[in-house]
């Protein structure tokens, strides 16, 4: 009797789970994207007749290939520059003995705490036509082109430094796993330091470098915030532009956007397949029984040593200048920001809190005051609204992705080596094959009507857009969450589950009390990292931009636009700096929680608690002893 009951209950869970998973996969991954694909071939001519190849003809005859070529040009260039900068900063901080390597490493990693739109606008603050550095340079070289920081070179420059932090992070792990004994062996056999570098060290880094190169290429191809804000005609900004356009403005904009996003998807799929194929061929694994830790190599040639130090510190300055400037100017008032000069005696928090009037001189020579025109990040309704919305959407989506993935991975591990587990995993990795823009564009077009399986709602209408953003955020983050959570599940010893079952725990209790606590730090880390990247995310926000879906990234972008209109809202610069500082603090805190606190196991935490207790006791006893002495 009892056995039947359990079978029924588990069957219900399985059926419910299966149906929900199918609903999620088909409804929010396959159908919208298929709709995009079919829309390319269902265009109609002026007479209303179906013309399946109209967009293709338009593509071949018009200027659409320019966007593809531009994206490819950016991707190829980025691949080269990111590898040059990425490899050199890793060698400078990890392999060669460069003075101040720890500080240099911190500087090179600053782009970890402010990326995307925050980084681009940060660079703009420094380098665009009214930027701090440009203004100073124009004072020195009056004939220089004020618009130098725009277009391809600006995008390449910004993205190079934006992408190297991730590149360096993975490459650093690879270089740290090199067995130093192999370096010593090569030296012992007579190889000179640079020969060792190129013939022993670099070949072991090649698999990582190959993966990073492919990923950088895809990043360049799918670039969004930098080309949009710095003015470069690549695929993604064009898709967003076309998505917002109508037939009245130009020929079949939606179908063209769909074609561009499918082209992007084809590139991504091919590249990921190449990557997968390469990874499956295996890596150069260390065969050492006992690995020796890498010892930093001194550059023996004094000239090369000096040049390496100069190069390292020039890079450091490039990385650090925007950060330092943004932090400093976030505490300056608007006249100082406008004049691009530091006024050390006039520090203010107005860019963060409170507001003040803005006094200005009109073209007719009259002084006018605009009341409360200058407001800080947390006093500006629009900015706070953006922060609140982004916070909510990112948190919900990051949590949803974690819940879905944890349940799915538990299922995958319970059904190891079975076809159904492979299928579930494949479905969850599906969004990885597609560029974000294709998913978002497909959502925007497909759900901009009443769809029966979302209870007849139009998800791109009114406040529903927020739900649409959450869905897109969740779907896009599933592959990353899956890879990370799966890695965490691998750490669970099979015998732990056996032990729990032997001690009488049910499947649910085993999951909740044994497995989940083990993977929880990783799950929370995935949540935090996903939240962090979504909070200031630009690509999806721009695609779904509407009055109900104005996320923080769009608010930051609008600050840039406001600044363009002279005198309209002069404090936007200050608020933008403060916004970037706020993002840096939040990201820094999240990364600290993930990699600092989150990396501690129970033993470390108990030790820390013990130490804290002892410290408190010492303080308490110290005070007590002091008081006793006084009393005495």
């Amino acid at each position, binding site marked *: 009797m009892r056995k039947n009951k359990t079978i029924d209950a588990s069957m219900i869970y399985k059926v419910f789970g299966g149906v929900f998973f199918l609903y999620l996969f088909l409804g929010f991954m396959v159908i919208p994207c298929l709709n995009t694909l079919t829309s390319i071939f269902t265009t109609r001519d002026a007479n209303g007749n179906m013309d399946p190849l109209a967009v293709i003809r338009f593509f071949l005859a018009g200027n659409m290939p320019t966007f593809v070529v531009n994206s490819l040009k950016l991707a190829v260039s980025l691949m080269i520059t990111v590898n040059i900068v990425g490899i050199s900063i890793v060698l400078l901080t990890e392999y060669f003995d460069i003075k101040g390597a720890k500080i240099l490493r911190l500087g090179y990693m600053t782009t970890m705490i402010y990326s995307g739109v925050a980084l681009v606008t940060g660079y703009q603050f420094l380098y665009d036509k009214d930027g701090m550095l440009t203004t100073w340079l124009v004072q020195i070289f009056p004939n220089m082109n004020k618009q130098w920081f725009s277009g391809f070179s600006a995008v390449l420059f910004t993205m190079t430094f934006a992408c190297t932090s991730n590149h360096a992070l993975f490459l650093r792990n690879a270089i740290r796993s090199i067995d130093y004994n192999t370096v010593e062996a090569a030296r012992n056999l007579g190889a000179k330091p640079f020969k060792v570098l190129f013939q022993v060290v670099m070949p072991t880094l090649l698999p990582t470098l190959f993966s990073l190169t492919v990923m950088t290429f895809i990043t360049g191809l799918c670039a969004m915030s930098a080309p949009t804000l710095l003015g470069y005609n690549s695929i993604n900004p064009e898709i967003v532009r076309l998505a917002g356009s109508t037939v009245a403005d130009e020929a079949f904009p939606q179908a063209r956007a769909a074609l561009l996003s499918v082209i992007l998807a084809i590139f991504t799929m091919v590249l990921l397949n190449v990557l997968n194929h390469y990874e499956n061929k295996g890596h150069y694994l260390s065969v050492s029984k006992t690995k020796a830790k890498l010892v930093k190599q001194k550059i023996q040639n004094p000239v090369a040593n000096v040049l390496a130090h100069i190069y390292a510190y020039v890079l450091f300055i490039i990385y650090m200048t925007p950060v330092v400037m943004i932090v400093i100017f976030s505490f300056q008032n608007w006249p100082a920001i406008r004049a691009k000069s530091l006024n050390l005696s006039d520090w203010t928090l107005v860019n963060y809190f409170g507001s003040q009037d803005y006094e200005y001189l009109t073209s007719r020579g009259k002084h006018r005051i605009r009341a409360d025109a200058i407001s800080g990040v947390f006093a500006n309704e629009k900015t706070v609204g953006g922060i609140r919305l982004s916070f909510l959407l990112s948190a919900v989506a990051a949590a949803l992705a974690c819940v879905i993935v944890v349940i799915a991975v538990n299922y995958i591990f319970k059904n190891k080596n079975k076809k159904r587990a492979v299928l579930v995993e494949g479905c969850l990795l599906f969004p990885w094959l597609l560029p974000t823009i294709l998913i978002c564009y497909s959502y925007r077009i497909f759900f901009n009507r009443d769809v029966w399986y979302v209870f007849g709602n139009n998800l791109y209408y009114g406040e529903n857009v927020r739900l649409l953003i959450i869905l897109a955020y969740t779907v896009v983050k599933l592959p990353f969450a899956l890879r990370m959570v799966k890695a965490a599940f691998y750490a669970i010893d099979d015998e732990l589950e056996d032990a729990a079952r*032997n001690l009488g725990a049910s499947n649910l209790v085993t999951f909740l009390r044994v497995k989940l606590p083990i993977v929880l730090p990783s799950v929370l880390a995935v949540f935090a990292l996903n939240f962090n990247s979504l909070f200031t995310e630009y690509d999806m926000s721009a695609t779904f931009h509407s009055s109900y879906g104005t996320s923080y990234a769009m608010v930051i972008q609008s600050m840039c636009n406001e600044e363009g209109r002279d005198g309209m809202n002069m404090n936007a610069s200050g608020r933008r700096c403060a916004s970037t500082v706020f993002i840096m603090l939040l990201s820094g805190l999240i990364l600290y929680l993930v990699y600092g606190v989150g990396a501690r196991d129970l033993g470390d935490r108990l030790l820390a608690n013990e130490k804290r207790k002892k410290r408190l006791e010492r303080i308490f006893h110290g005070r007590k002893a002091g008081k006793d002495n006084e009393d005495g």
Partner: protein
Amino acid sequence: MIELKDIVVKFGDFEALHNINVHVKEGEFFTFLGPSGCGKTTTLRTITGFIEPVSGSVWMKGKDITHVPIEKRDIGIVFQSYALFPTMTVHDNIAFGLKIRKLRKKEIEEKVTTIAHKVDLSDEQLAKAVSQLSGGQQQRVAIARALVTEPDIICMDEPLSNLDAKLRVQLRNELKKMQREFGITTIYVTHDQEEALTLSDRIAVFNKGYIEQIGTPNEVYNFSGTEFVANFIGDINRLESGLVEGLHLSESKNHFIRLERVQVNRPKDENEFQAKGLIESREYYGLYIKYYIRVCGQTVKVIEKNDGISIYEAGEEVTIGIHPSDVMTYDR
């Protein structure tokens, strides 16, 4: 106490266990010994309920438990990796099974403290995380966790295999002591013959999913039932034609002799066969010395106690003596 009757286990088409029959008596320390992949762990997992046999039955205290769920079998397990829950303290690890059984808090505390003290774990260690303990202490936690629910039987799957040699010997002794104190029926899995010989009351030697022999350590060592057992347990010499002829043994059978049963330069016993040999090389082990002696066209390994006086050099001529009753003979 526990009995396996005609157990057959299959993984797909592969038959991992073929008609296994074992009877473990109450309070006995019973060891499953054999090389990797011989079926010893599979047999243990069949007893504990993680594997259901294709045919045959598992009996405990006269009851058929073949289809009884794992948690209802009342069998404690000490896993190879100890399988201690890393997110719980030592106390919570030991208390886990009791909490699942929904015992009162006071009772849980009493039981945890009692068992912890019995296995030499202090109150301070109970508050620690398992990662803060040494390998030996972790083993004690695993044993305490398995014993706290007062199971009828305890199963240990190579619990010493992850430890270094010195600690392994130390814990082996502690394990035996604990087993005697608790008087609990223990089934122990190992591939280490020394561990099996020193710990067990009886040993079942496994090979390719079959049991080759069940017996006391003395029986499996000195009266190995099969050629496999003779070869697997301890070191042994296979006698070639020269010695077989000299000893007047049947040439249609295989003959073996343990290293310590070959005498060097000793007075001839009655019925003993003696032959001249040449020392090829020697290995110095401290407590004893191992000689490789060329005799009657084959190399014979011999172990001699290191008395510090009769130590032979390579190239030295010696006389070896073999008693026919020490030879173990098996059909070809």
